[in-house]
């Protein structure tokens, strides 16, 4: 029997990761039972485990049989609790991993539970915990409190509470142990993390109760979702993946759970996605509303309005999960995933001009109000201010939705979203939800934006809207014109553009973002969200059969537990980029809803 999936230079393929989380942070668990990524205390904090970014010094939490095995995984039904079953020649053992949710007891600041059940036979298990605080840049002190192994550094501390998992020994700045899992036996390894407070050392009964409560809380949340279409399993898994990315203390939603997983192996496109992008806001609010999550939709909209308050009427493309804008990009001295450097934290795109964000934000407000939510006077004033700002700035070149690092240009999708911004503002004003004194100006400027798009951003040669004014290259982001209703989807030019993108950017189920330069060296994989956008655009332009075929293919590209990263290498099928990626899952939900509407 062989190992389930061998590592390359210590790195597991990105596809092999499942995510668990608690609404504050997310851990990545590999199919060989190793927790290779865990920032603490929050999703955007420094990591304690970063093996996925450096297989020598990153740190991880291994737990696996000592003999060769095959591993099979699933999430416990309707939860974000992961179950890995290891089948060996001498027996079977089941590991269940959960980041537990807070309850009424004195619970740890953050808690990771790893529960080991013997299913059959006798399986020797080994584990090793190597905490490496501060992205492996901060040395920890190892010791014991009341016999419990602890590692401390500054105002952070980590305790390993083990029950029935053998004796722990400290070796090379890590704890390790072995035990035998026999049929019907249970062992438990729990990491208790403290931040600016004393460590909580939980008892076994507390851990058991909190685990059961965590499973129940996830199930309760999932049973209240109201998608009833044919892709229920994929949609609910995507909803659960999104819920993992919701930062509960503020209601912000992160674009992904990781940083610096490469868009090209060995390349430099290694970005930190642990921020909330305005770009994703319309899809996010739509997904929440479509899935019957009005409370999440309201919380997210309130967060958006709070976060954008200080910079209004100017928008940053992205905001920190606490609503601030400081996101200075820097490189960590880590080796990177399979040598992909730099390992970036922070994101320099925060200071770019991205005009499409105004369209996304006003589309978000429009969707929010259309579903019966109230927009109060202060917020209405601010939304009107954004529309005024669009009137003043839409003629400028920008960095576009893809945040190109070259010279700004007049991106077509940015201009289209400016037109959407002004149209949504006008619609909100007509309903007296926002001040209407500049309504006429929004209409006039909106017409000018559209005239620019129709005369400068359309290519008769390509029979398509192009990437930017005067270009002959195509860009899949223009599909958003269909999804966000820049024009009626039956518009001839939109239909022709969908066809052209299908011809030139599609490779099987894969769709590339664009052709041409973007100011960076190297290339990248196919962008999964673009594939879903194409499927949705096909559905909305009356080509439902093609849309369904493409969607079926895309569903089959998910990993074994139903998750997607940002990109896929069309040649090998390998996942690329950060994982799990919110936009991929948002696009899946949006497409599934569109397909259901097309059939209705």
């Amino acid at each position, binding site marked *: 029997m062989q190992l389930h999936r061998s590592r390359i230079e210590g790195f597991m393929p990105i596809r092999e990761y499942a995510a668990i*989380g608690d*609404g504050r942070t997310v851990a990545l668990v590999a199919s060989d039972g190793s927790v290779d990524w865990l920032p603490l205390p*929050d999703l955007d904090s420094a990591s304690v485990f970063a093996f996925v970014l450096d297989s020598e010094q990153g740190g991880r939490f291994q737990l696996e049989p000592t003999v060769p095995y095959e591993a099979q995984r699933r999430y416990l039904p309707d939860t974000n609790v992961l179950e890995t079953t290891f089948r060996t020649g001498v027996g079977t053992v089941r590991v269940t991993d959960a980041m537990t949710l*807070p309850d009424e007891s004195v619970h740890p600041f953050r808690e990771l539970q790893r529960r080991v059940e013997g299913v059959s036979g006798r399986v020797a298990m080994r584990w090793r915990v190597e905490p490496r605080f501060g992205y492996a840049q901060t040395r920890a002190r190892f010791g014991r409190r009341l016999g419990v192994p602890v590692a401390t550094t500054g105002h952070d501390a980590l305790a390993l509470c083990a029950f029935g998992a053998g004796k722990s020994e400290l070796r090379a700045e890590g704890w390790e142990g072995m035990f035998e899992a026999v049929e019907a036996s249970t062992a438990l390894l729990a990491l208790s993390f403290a931040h600016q407070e004393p460590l909580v050392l939980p008892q076994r009964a507390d851990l058991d109760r909190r685990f059961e409560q965590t499973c129940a809380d996830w199930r309760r949340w999932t049973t209240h979702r109201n998608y009833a279409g044919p892709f229920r399993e994929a949609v609910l898994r995507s909803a659960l993946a999104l819920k993992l990315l919701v930062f*509960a203390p503020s*209601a912000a939603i992160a674009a992904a759970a990781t940083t610096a997983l490469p868009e090209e192996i060995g390349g430099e496109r290694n970005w930190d996605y642990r921020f909330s992008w305005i770009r994703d806001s319309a899809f996010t609010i739509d997904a929440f509303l479509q899935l019957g999550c009005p409370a999440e939709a*309201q919380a997210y909209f309130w967060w958006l309005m709070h976060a954008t308050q200080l910079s209004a009427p100017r928008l940053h493309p992205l905001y920190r999960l606490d609503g601030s804008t400081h996101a200075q990009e820097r490189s960590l001295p880590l080796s990177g995933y399979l040598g992909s450097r730099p390992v970036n934290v922070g994101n320099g795109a925060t200071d770019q001009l991205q005009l499409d964000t105004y369209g996304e934000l006003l589309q978000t407000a429009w969707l929010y109000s259309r579903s019966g939510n109230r927009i109060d006077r202060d917020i209405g004033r601010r939304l009107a201010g954004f529309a005024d700002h669009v009137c003043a700035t839409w003629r400028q070149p920008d960095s576009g939705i893809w945040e190109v690092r070259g010279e700004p240009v007049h991106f077509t999708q940015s201009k289209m979203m400016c037109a959407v911004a002004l149209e949504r503002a006008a619609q909100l004003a007509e309903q007296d939800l926002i001040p209407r004194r500049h309504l006429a100006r929004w209409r006039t400027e909106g017409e000018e934006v559209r005239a620019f798009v129709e005369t400068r951003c359309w290519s008769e040669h390509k029979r398509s809207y192009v990437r930017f004014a005067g270009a002959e290259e195509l860009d899949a982001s223009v599909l958003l014109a269909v999804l966000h209703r820049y024009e009626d989807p039956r518009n001839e030019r939109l239909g022709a553009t969908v066809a052209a993108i299908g011809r030139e950017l599609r490779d099987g189920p894969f769709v590339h973002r664009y052709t041409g330069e973007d100011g960076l060296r190297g290339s990248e994989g196919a962008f999964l969200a673009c594939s879903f956008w194409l499927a949705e655009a096909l559905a909305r332009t009356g080509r439902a059969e093609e849309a369904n075929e493409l969607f079926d293919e895309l569903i089959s590209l998910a990993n074994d537990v139903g998750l997607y990263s940002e990109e896929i290498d069309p040649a090998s099928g390998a996942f690329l980029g950060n994982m799990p990626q919110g936009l991929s899952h948002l696009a899946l939900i949006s497409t599934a809803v569109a397909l259901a509407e097309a059939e209705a």
Partner: protein
Amino acid sequence: MSIWGALAGGFVGTLVLTTAMRSANELKLTRIDLPFLLGTAFTTNRTRAKALGYLLHFAFGLLFALGYYGIFLAIDHAGWWLGAAFGGVHGLFASTALVNVLLPLVHPRMGSPLSGANTITLLEPPGFLMRNYGPQTALVTVLGHIAYGAIVGGFTALAP
């Protein structure tokens, strides 16, 4: 020194404090909005929350003025400068403990660092020195409270 002076100072001081905070808000120095934070503890209607919050803020302003008055009585001294010092301490307490730690614990719609996926919060937690609401928030809050304290102290001392 009189209790009526302290109450009058509390009213005027809260008026000044509220106006200063609101002005800082409009000047984009901070996102903090104390009446809004207080009012949303009782309603999710933002407009009603602000109206209710202003009432509550003035009530708290009077209560704190009575607290100041008690201390002035105990040390048998009141004045603008002493009040300003009290206000400074009050502002620091508000930034580090009252709004940062205590409010998230009692506010049903405010997140805290402990909020998990089984809760939905409408308001982000303030963070240490309320920096989540903008880096200038602590400065604005402390200055506003110094003005409040000075007015309470001065009015208390002036009243016969």
